[in-house]
């Protein structure tokens, strides 16, 4: 895995044996070591001008998300409006990267977002469990794209992955990617259910090999969502994948990132692991809902010198 000797990967499609050999041949991840590294980077002190720049970048990286059974057109319209103008009191505040909703809500969000530059992401493939037949997943995907989603957040079949049926997971991702057409595909690994860092690394490579444009940590629907060490392992995977294939893949931690302090730790992680090329909303996203208001609150604090109360920020 060296950048200087870019090698093509062997064709791994259609061969369960080759896929397995490849994934199990990746270097292991030492749990203690990766957690210590993530914790150490978490102590970086980002203040003043660096903090201001980080906050604006983080806002531009937010996939503003609502994935509830209770979602209504009204709720989604409000969220989409917020995506365009996160801080109505401050026109210098940038819009977020995307709005992320269930397929049924895509038409509503599309009405607000069309032509604005803010992307429209839809979860699909029987989110969050992924426990549905492939044709249902593909129909789910096609419908979302047809309704106006330009990004699809799919879930992998964790059951198949944990059972060692890597070829099954691979073929599903390939099929969903095809169903996406020109829409970007984010592949949710649901790392909280994969449990080990070795699994996270293998699932990351599996998704990238199958054509993922982004790899994403979590649905937000299981107890353990995005963590710094999991994201670090995924960043190492996209770094090594690009070194090997020349293709760049994005990373999206999602779930549980609620504060500016947390978001900045992720930016530090990017900065010191994969560098500038990923410090961009095209290559890194935060899947979040409440994070945005904390970012706005800290942004206002930096520009005005004092904290405004939570009533000064919109609840959507």
């Amino acid at each position: 895995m060296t950048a200087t000797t870019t090698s093509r990967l062997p064709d791994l499609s259609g061969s369960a044996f080759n896929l397995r050999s490849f994934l199990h041949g990746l270097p292991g991840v030492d749990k203690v070591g990766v957690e210590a590294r993530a914790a150490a980077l978490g102590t970086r002190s980002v203040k003043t001008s660096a903090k201001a720049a980080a906050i604006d970048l983080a806002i531009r990286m937010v996939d503003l998300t609502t994935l509830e059974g209770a979602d209504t057109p009204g709720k989604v319209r409000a969220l989409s409006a917020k995506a365009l103008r996160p801080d109505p009191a401050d026109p210098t505040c940038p819009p977020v990267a995307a709005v992320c909703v269930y397929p049924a809500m895509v038409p509503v969000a599309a009405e607000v977002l069309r032509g604005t530059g803010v992307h429209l992401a839809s979860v699909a493939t029987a989110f969050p469990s992924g426990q549905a037949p492939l044709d249902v997943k593909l129909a789910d995907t096609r419908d979302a794209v047809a309704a106006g989603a330009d990004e699809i957040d799919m879930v992998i079949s964790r059951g198949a992955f944990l059972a060692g049926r890597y070829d099954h997971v691979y073929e599903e991702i390939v099929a969903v990617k095809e169903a996406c057409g020109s829409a970007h595909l984010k592949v949710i690994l649901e790392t909280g259910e994969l449990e080990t860092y070795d699994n996270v690394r293998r699932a990351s490579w599996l998704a990238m090999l199958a054509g993922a444009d982004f790899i994403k940590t979590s649905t937000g629907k299981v107890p353990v969502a995005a963590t710094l060490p999991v994201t670090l392992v995924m960043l190492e995977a996209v770094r090594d994948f690009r070194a090997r294939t020349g293709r760049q893949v994005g990373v999206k931690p999602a779930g549980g990132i609620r504060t500016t302090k947390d978001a900045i730790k992720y930016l530090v992680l990017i900065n010191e692991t994969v560098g500038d090329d990923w410090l961009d909303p095209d290559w890194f996203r935060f899947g979040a809902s409440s994070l945005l208001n904390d970012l706005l609150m800290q942004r206002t604090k930096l520009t005005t010198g004092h904290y405004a109360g939570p009533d000064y920020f919109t609840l959507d």
Partner: protein
Amino acid sequence: MGMFEYAPAPESRSVVDIAPSYGLFIDGEFVPPASSGGVFKTVNPATEEVLAEVSTAGPEDVDRAVTAARRAAGPWSALPGAERAKYLFRIARIIQERSRELAVLESLDNGKPIRESRDIDLPLVAAHFFYYAGWADKLRYAGFGADPRPLGVAAQVIPWNFPLLMLAWKIAPALATGNTVVLKPAETTPLSALFFADVCRQADLPPGVVNIVTGAGETGRTLVEHPGVDKVAFTGSTEVGRQIARSVAGTRKRLTLELGGKAANIVFDDAPIDQAVEGIVNGIFFNQGHVCCAGSRLLIQESVYDEVLESLKRRMATLRVGDPLDKNTDVGAINSAEQLERIRTLSDIGAEEGAERWSPPCTLPAQGFWFAPTIFTGVTQAHRIAREEIFGPVLSVLTFRTPAEAIEKANNTPYGLSAGVWSEKGSRILAVADKLRAGVVWANTFNKFDPTSPFGGYKESGYGREGGRHGLEAYLA
């Protein structure tokens, strides 16, 4: 680096008061040295700014300190262990409470990054006192006989790389076991030991139990050769260790030495590569490489050599070298002009002997003592930089083909302080660790310390153990 630049995040240096000049701490108070001419300056190695004037203890001062320690030894050792523990617990708590002051002071005087003095040195210092406080009333159950007795007065000479932590390693077990001490900090880093004297007063430690005498090598020599000393504990260079062993030979003094090292850090082809690279970096660039157990010889299995080396270089390019008080600094200043000269000399020899030298692009400050993180590739066992302790941020990279060859090369050194093994295969780690002649073997980590774990060397890395239950033995008869 690139588009995400961290703004300067300096820790405030005003949190700690530094006096313009310091006397010697003898019998519970600061006193001027007997001969007035004896002062020297201690500087901030990051800026060359003079921090304070410090006294040189001459023979008369050392004698006064040993006499005070002797006088205090009887009553101190007669205290119930639980009473001595109370003082040690108190010292540990005061250190925790004043850790911010101490961390800033340590970084100012030593040049180490505040991130390390704050997150590593100070927590370990407090932990060491807490740990040995716990032993003070349990000595009869430590396995050294039914009624172990203290030795008396301990002469302790410590180095400049971890000034306060080495002080803790020396003083905590000595006091817990009922000894009294005269400690000499290194001449380039006396300030935290002098601050510690104040901590002792704050803890109401009886006068004479801890005495701090400052000065250079001559003061140290006078102290270890003083006939009133029962025990000598030294951490420092192998060369000085030899002199001390000679001077102590034939006396009744007990001696422990913790000396140099040239540790092998062995990366097998089944290692967790990303974490191994972190371990390599931590092994040699932690504390600017001023670490006796530094992983200064990297042994990489040939089949993963390119991959590991490239990852290592990429990682080294993210090291932030500069102002030790900036909270984001990874690598600080070299402790002294003298040490910088030694690092430069040995590095030049490495290049002359044909090894390939590489450092990441980094701008070093104009003032102060600085050396960029450096690796040498193409190093063989015959190179001087593979044999001699550089004690700086300089890594020699060697290769091996089989586990047997790795073990042979790792052990092929006069030193034997520490070693590291990186492999995801547990059986390999155990088999290799078993054959390494080193006092500490780290598996899938490096430079990890804990007060419960004994530390010390084989061969020319010294003898005796510090830390853990084993560390009590050096102070008990």
